[in-house]
């Protein structure tokens, strides 16, 4: 869970120190206090969400909205579930093992899912040129084009001259 979440946040562009997972047993109140205090300090040092990352509020909102969508998408969730299943079978809970598998199995799906969700979000507000898409998402041409084509094949969007736009519902 933690590793996958981290990778998503990383792709969103957030500082990974903003998300921490830690443990304290019922008897470890002082440890708990230390965890909370340290974490608060860390966040204080980082500064407000987005600002510290150099993300303008609009981009931040867009990226997080895309991440939200991704996280409820069944394609991503199935891959995530399957990965957990695989890890349990292999009995491999070493950080390296988890990282390697997440990198191999999930990161491509996350990348693609995020980009797709961003594109959809951008297009939902009206026609956008490919250059504008490239600029807003910060992605490469070779990543964006296949997604646009796939979406248009599904009949969700269409190309009108230089710009892409959502396909009018018939």
């Amino acid at each position, binding site marked *: 869970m933690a590793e996958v979440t981290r990778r998503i946040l990383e792709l969103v562009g957030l500082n990974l120190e903003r998300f921490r997972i830690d443990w304290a*047993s*019922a*008897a*470890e109140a002082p440890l708990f206090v230390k965890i909370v205090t340290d974490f608060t300090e860390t966040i204080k040092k980082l500064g407000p969400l987005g600002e510290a990352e150099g993300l303008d509020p609009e981009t931040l909102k867009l990226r997080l909205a895309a991440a939200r969508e991704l996280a409820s998408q069944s394609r991503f969730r199935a891959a995530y579930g399957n990965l957990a299943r695989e890890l349990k079978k292999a009995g491999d809970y070493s950080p390296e093992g988890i990282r390697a598998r997440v990198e191999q199995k999930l990161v491509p799906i996350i990348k693609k899912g995020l980009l797709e969700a961003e594109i959809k979000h951008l297009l939902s507000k009206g026609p956008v040129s490919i250059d504008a898409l490239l600029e807003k998402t910060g992605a490469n041409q070779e990543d964006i084009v296949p997604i646009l084509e796939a979406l248009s094949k599904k009949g969700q969007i269409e190309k009108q001259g230089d710009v892409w736009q959502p396909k009018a519902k018939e």
Partner: protein
Amino acid sequence: MASKKSGKVLVLGGGITGVQAALDLADLGYYVYLVEKKASIGGVMAQLDKTFPTNDCSI
């Protein structure tokens, strides 16, 4: 004929053994008096920091 036996049990000692016995007896349908000479139950186990080998808090 109804039995004249009492359905209650007296457990003397509120350490981990006494507490566990009381819990199981209550679950089995008996009323338990858990009698401890100190002001609270828990015994020495409550003084232990962690227990081996799982090192969890255990209470």
